[in-house]
C-alpha cells in the first residue's frame, strides 16, 4: 500500500510542471477569453460589465469584421489547394530517383524554417522593389501589386505557399515512401503504366495523408497574421485584413478586449467547424474501405 502511494506520488509529480503550465497558460486564458467575449472589457481597465451577446451581435453586423472572414477564407483556400497540389507534385518527383535530390529538398524546405516575420519582409521587398524592376525590364508599366484590391490576397497566398510547401512536401514524401515496393512491382508486372500507377495505386494509398495535410494546412493558413502585418498592414482598405490581424488591432490598437474575444471565439468556431467536417469526411471514407 505504501509503495503504491509512493508510485502514485511519483507519477503525479512528474506530471505537475506540465499541469501547472497547462492550467495557467491554457485553461485560464481560454476560460477568460470566453468570459471576456460577453463583457465590455476595455484595455487594462479592471472594471467591466456583462453585456450578454452584444459583442457577437456586433461582430455579425460589423462589415469590417465580416470582410475579414471572406479575406481569410480566400487566402486559405488558395494557399491550401494550390499549396497541397504543389507539395504533392514536388513529393512525387523527389520520391523518385533523381540527381541532387537532397539539395533540391533543402531548397524547398528552407523557406519553412525561416521566421514568418522575415519571410513577410523579404516578400515585401520582392513585391515593392523587385517586381516593378522586373516589369520595367520587360517593358511593361509597373504597378503596386500589394495595393491592388484584387491581387493582394493571391499575392499573400503565394508567400504562404512559398513558406509552407516544403513542410507538406516532407509529409507527402514520407507517405509515398511508406507504400510497399512489392505492390508497385506487382502492378508494373500487371502492365500498369506510370500514370495508372499514380492515379490508381499511389494517390489512393496516400489519401489519408492528403486529408491530414488538408486539415493541418487549413488550420495553419486560417491563422495567418505575420504576412498582412509585414506586407500590407491589412490594406488596401481592409482587403487583406485577416481574422487574426483584425483581432490583434481590435484588442491592442482599439483596446476592445471584450469585442476582440468575441471575434476570437467566432474564428475558433469557423476553424473547428471546417476541421470537424473534413474529419467526418475522412472517417466516412475510411469506413468504406
Amino acid at each position, binding site marked *: 500500500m505504501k509503495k503504491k502511494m509512493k508510485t502514485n506520488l511519483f507519477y503525479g509529480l512528474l506530471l505537475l510542471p506540465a499541469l501547472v503550465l497547462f492550467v495557467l497558460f491554457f485553461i485560464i486564458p481560454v476560460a477568460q477569453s470566453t468570459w471576456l467575449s460577453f463583457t465590455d472589457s476595455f484595455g487594462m481597465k479592471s472594471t467591466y460589465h456583462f453585456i450578454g451577446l452584444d459583442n457577437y451581435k456586433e461582430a455579425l453586423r460589423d462589415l469590417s469584421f465580416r470582410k475579414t472572414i471572406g479575406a481569410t477564407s480566400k487566402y486559405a483556400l488558395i494557399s491550401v489547394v494550390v499549396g497541397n497540389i504543389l507539395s504533392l507534385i514536388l513529393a512525387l518527383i523527389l520520391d523518385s530517383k533523381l540527381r541532387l535530390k537532397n539539395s533540391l529538398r533543402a531548397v524547398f524546405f528552407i523557406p519553412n524554417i525561416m521566421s514568418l516575420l522575415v519571410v513577410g519582409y523579404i516578400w515585401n521587398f520582392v513585391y515593392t522593389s523587385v517586381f516593378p524592376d522586373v516589369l520595367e525590364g520587360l517593358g511593361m508599366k509597373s504597378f503596386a501589386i500589394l495595393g491592388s484590391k484584387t491581387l493582394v490576397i493571391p499575392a499573400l497566398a503565394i508567400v504562404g505557399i*512559398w513558406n509552407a510547401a516544403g513542410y507538406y512536401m516532407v509529409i507527402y514524401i514520407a507517405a509515398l515512401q511508406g507504400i510497399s515496393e512489392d505492390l508497385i512491382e506487382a502492378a508494373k508486372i500487371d502492365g500498369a503504366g*506510370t500514370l495508372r500507377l499514380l492515379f490508381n495505386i499511389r494517390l489512393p494509398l496516400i489519401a489519408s495523408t492528403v486529408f491530414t495535410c488538408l486539415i493541418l494546412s487549413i488550420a495553419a493558413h486560417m491563422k495567418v497574421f505575420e504576412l498582412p502585418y509585414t506586407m500590407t498592414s491589412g490594406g488596401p482598405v481592409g482587403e487583406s485584413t485577416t481574422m487574426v490581424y483584425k483581432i490583434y488591432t481590435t484588442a491592442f490598437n482599439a483596446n476592445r478586449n471584450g469585442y476582440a474575444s468575441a471575434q476570437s471565439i467566432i474564428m475558433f468556431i469557423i476553424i473547428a467547424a471546417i476541421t470537424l467536417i473534413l474529419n467526418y469526411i475522412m472517417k466516412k471514407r475510411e469506413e468504406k474501405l
Partner: protein
Amino acid sequence: MNWKIGKKLLYAVKVILIWIFAAIFFAPLLLVIVNSFKSKGEIMTSAISLPKSFYLNNFVTIVTESNFVSSFLTSLMVVTITTTLTVLVAAMAGYSLAKWKNKVAGFLMTMIMCTLFVPFQVYMVAMIVVVKDLGLTGNLFGLIMVYVALGMPVPIFLCRSYAVGMPKEIEEAAIIDGCSNWSMFFRIVLPLMKPILATVAVLNALWVWGEFLVAFLVYGNAKPMTLPLSQRYFYGTYSNQWNLILTNFLVSSIPVILFYIVMQKHIVKGITAGAVKG
C-alpha cells in the same frame, strides 16, 4: 522500345519541372543574398542587377551598429532554456501519462489533446491579460514560460507514444536493483528516450528561434530583444534601407540553415510523427 523512350521522356519532364520549381523557390533567397552586397543607391537603381563591386559595408554596419549581436545572443539563450525546459517537462509528463494507469491520467491526456485544436490566436487576448496579472509581461522569464506552455502539447504526445513502447522490464530491473523512482527516471528512462527527445528539441528550437507573435505580445518592446523582435524594430528604424534589412535577414538565417543541414533527419522525423499524431 517505345516504352523506353516514354520513360526517358518522363524523366526529362520531371527533371525540368523540379528545376523550374527550385529556381522559383530559390529566387527570393537569391535576391536577399545578391542585394546584401549592394549599397542603398545600387538597390534603388535596380533590385535585380548583380552587385557592381564586392560591397561589404552592410555586414560591417549590421555587426557594429545595430543591436544585432545582442539580440542574436538573447535569442540563443531563450532557445536554449526554452528547449531544455520543454524537453524535460514533456519527457516527464509523457512518461507519466504512458505508465500511470489511472483515470486522472486518462482525463489529463484528453484535456491536453484539446490544446491541439485550440490555436493560440484564439485566446491570445485573454492570455495577455492573464500574463500581465501574473507579472510576466516584459521579462524573459515570462516569455520562456509561455513558450514552454505553448510548445509542449505535441512533445508530450510524442514522448507518451514513445514511452508506451518502452519495455517495462528495464525499469523493473532498475527498481529491483535498488534504484529509487527518481533516479530510475533520470538515469534509465531519460537516456532511453533520447531519440524522441532529440527530435522534439530540434523542432522546438526552430520554432522558438523564429517565433514573432507571442514574443511581440508577451515581451513587447522590452530589452534585450529576441531576434524577430529586433528585426521588426530594425525594419521600422531603417525603413527603405533594404541593403541593411536584407543583410540582417541573411546573417540571421545562416545559423538556422546550417542547423537544418545538420539536423535534417530529426526535422523530417519530427514533422512526419507530429502530422500523424496531430
